[in-house]
């Protein structure tokens, strides 16, 4: 899905938290959104995912303004996912059920993703008995199972075990490469951005300072601020 942002402004109590002049996410891209804490990464991802409204500006999706119909084709995975108070299986089946899939289709799709994400053994467990890594994997499986065209991830691998991180990164890459899902991922880890993202955007104080291919931004940044950040001197602003 192509996403184009123009003149996005978000104001919190008269204090501008976000000012994006123009930013384009091309269909099939895998973007990383990096920057110090408080730069506005989460807010921007929520605005693109329509969970928050911008104070001003416009976002077009595939050249068209947002419609509620579009909501079914994009999704957001949070840093602390909310799992439904039922089994893992029911959590993953839920988006398919509300889309009116048949029992057999649901069974196939859920089983497939359970297998790919290596969470088959816990499929009958209740959601509140899961570890942090398991819960995060279930949340990602639930987002991928209905094959959205735009996947927004807000630090999905923060504070979870390395094995779970590896599986999740594998799944995100596969979704992007095999299913052509456009991905926008907020991350605090430069290593993760290097491993996973084709392009990254560096944010600072509500603005995108520079954006481009991962290699270029992380190794040859043109802005002094970006340089400071990638050298690890600007973690908290």
């Amino acid at each position, binding site marked *: 899905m192509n996403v184009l942002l123009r003149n996005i402004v978000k104001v919190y109590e008269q204090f501008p938290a976000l000012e994006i002049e123009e930013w384009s996410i091309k269909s099939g891209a895998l973007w990383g959104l990096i920057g110090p804490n408080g730069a506005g990464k989460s807010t921007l991802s929520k605005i693109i995912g*329509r969970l928050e409204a911008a104070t001003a500006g416009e976002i077009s999706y595939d050249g068209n303004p947002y419609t509620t119909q579009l*909501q079914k084709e994009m999704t*957001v995975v949070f840093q602390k996912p*909310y799992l*439904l*108070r039922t089994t893992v299986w029911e959590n993953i089946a*839920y988006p398919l059920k509300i*889309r009116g899939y048949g029992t057999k289709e649901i069974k196939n799709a859920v089983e497939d993703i359970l297998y790919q994400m290596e969470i088959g053994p816990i499929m009958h467990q209740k959601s509140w008995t899961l570890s942090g890594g398991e819960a995060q994997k279930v949340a990602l499986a639930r987002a991928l199972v209905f094959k959205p065209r735009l996947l927004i991830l807000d630090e999905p691998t923060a504070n979870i075990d390395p094995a779970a991180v590896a599986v999740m990164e594998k799944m995100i890459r596969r979704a992007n490469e095999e299913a052509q899902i456009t991905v926008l991922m907020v991350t605090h880890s430069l290593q993760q951005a290097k491993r996973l993202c084709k392009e990254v955007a560096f944010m600072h104080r509500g603005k995108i300072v520079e954006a481009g291919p991962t290699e270029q931004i992380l190794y040859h940044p043109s802005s002094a601020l970006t340089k400071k950040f990638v050298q690890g001197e600007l973690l908290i602003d």
Partner: protein
Amino acid sequence: MIGVNQVSQMWLGLKQALNLLFSLDQEVYKIIMLSLSVSLTATFISSIIGAPLGIFIGIKNFPFKRILVRLLYTMMSIPPVIAGLVVFLIISRKGPFGYLGLVYTPAAMIIAQSCLITPIIMGIVYNGTKERGSLIKALGKTLGASSGQAMLLLIRELRTNILSAVVTGYGRAVSEVGAVMIVGGNIKGHTRVMTTTIAMLQSMGDYSTAIAIGIVLLGISFLINSILYHFQQGA
């Protein structure tokens, strides 16, 4: 000496409670059934009104919300006698709805109990929704739920909370005496329920039968709480 006497009253009450239950005394069963049906109906009405409103206040932001919530909390602890008195004044012969002839009927008791427990159910559901409601709503949106589906999702996710609100409301209704005494009048065979019977027996000095009915009431509460506990374990 006095203390011993009171304790023996309680023993007598316990024995009498068993006798009452197993003797198939028509009058006692009528009292128990009326208690249950009046309070169940009131709980049903209050849940239909209170639960959706509680969810609504929990997930929506609107002007004067904080004042409304404070008001709601106050209403949760309204003394039953006051609720009863207000309902009485409205439905009594000289009140605005006197022409309906509701006073001293089970319907009047249902109205009074509903007034009493609707805020309780609303308040508990609001509290549960306040914590998780917006999260659940956001999740519904990210997974592509329509607004109707999101509402269903909310209710399903908050079911334990709603259930405990309903049971709390029911418990309050069935154990309440002030309001039903005023609007029901404790008329034998018409509006006499367990709590008004206990109050009456106490005033007549028949402590052991009062305790016996009290034990029956306690038994019913125990049953209801066991059911709730069972559900909370399952969800």
